[in-house]
């Protein structure tokens, strides 16, 4: 514990793991997007009139979705890293405080 703040570094470490798991789930969602041309044949749309417009719109929207999710993956990683860093900083601060208290105790003693 740190004075003036309530913090449990172990809780933050557990949260960091949760965000890592969620990142894995989000990655699976991204991988699950059926991409025309790679996951399935673009010719499935046929070459009937207007079909190529649907295909082009489909590709645009799926690519944008994939790109957006990649930002999400970075965000989730950012949460994981920030939590790990904060937990570590709190632990260091707590250790420093304990050392200072011990030193002060020794001087007082």
């Amino acid at each position, binding site marked *: 514990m740190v004075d003036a703040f*309530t913090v449990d570094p172990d809780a933050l470490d557990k949260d960091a793991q949760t965000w890592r798991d969620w990142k894995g789930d989000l990655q699976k969602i991204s991988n*699950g997007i059926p991409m025309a041309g790679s996951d*399935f044949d673009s010719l499935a749309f046929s070459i*009937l009139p207007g079909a190529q417009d649907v295909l082009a719109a489909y590709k645009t929207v799926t690519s944008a979705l994939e790109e957006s999710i990649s930002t999400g993956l970075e965000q989730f990683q950012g949460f994981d890293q920030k939590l790990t860093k904060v937990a570590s900083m709190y632990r260091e601060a707590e250790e420093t405080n304990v050392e200072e208290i011990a030193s002060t105790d020794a001087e007082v003693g």
Partner: protein
Amino acid sequence: MMIDVPKIAADFIKGCNTSEKALQNAVADAPGILRQIVDSQLVTKFLPGFAKQKLIDAVMWAVRKVADLLYEVIELFRLLARSVGNPATLRTAAEGMVTDVATASDTLTEDLKPASLQGTQTENWKSPAAVSYATGLSEQALSVKGIGEIARNLDLALRDMADSIESFYTDAEIAFLGLAISVAGLVIAIATAGPTLGVGTVLGLVASVAGLIMSVWGFVSAFTNSASRNSDDAAELAASPSVVWTESAFAA
């Protein structure tokens, strides 16, 4: 409505091959048949040779004109059969879009709530950073939720496209019937022209032209319906909102 588009395409190819062969044979046999007729019929057998040939040439010109049109339509059906598309593949992709993307993102959205985390509980973490953490969590949950909405639009677009292809081929089957009628009309006319030289052939040409009109009308109708429907779907999909992923201050 679900129809077996690949089977229809295969039937088109088979029918095209049969029609083309029948047409080639009929056109190849036509001059000989016409020669026999002009030489044997009362109304023509006493005509001078050049007049008989002129008559044969005139009928053959019309036969070849119609036959050429029929060959073009046959090629069009072959092109359609090759570019048939695959509704089953589109529906499989749509299912994946729902299961692996829409439903999975719904589940993840449900998971992204304060109760799933420990740092969002004040007994574990109480500080200004904890407030930013909680805000960031709700921002990320909203972004994940947006995936599901887009995935459902994409699912709809894939299913509509599959329906559109099937609808087109249902119309095209009617057009193909017109082609079959027109080929049969010409072939039969040539084969049975004997008793009424010219009249039978001309009637056959009329039948062929009528069949062609039916084919062409069927095509125009099928193409128009397909183009209109697909353009609407494309515009709707292109206008669908995209996910703008919120970048949370906490994750910076």
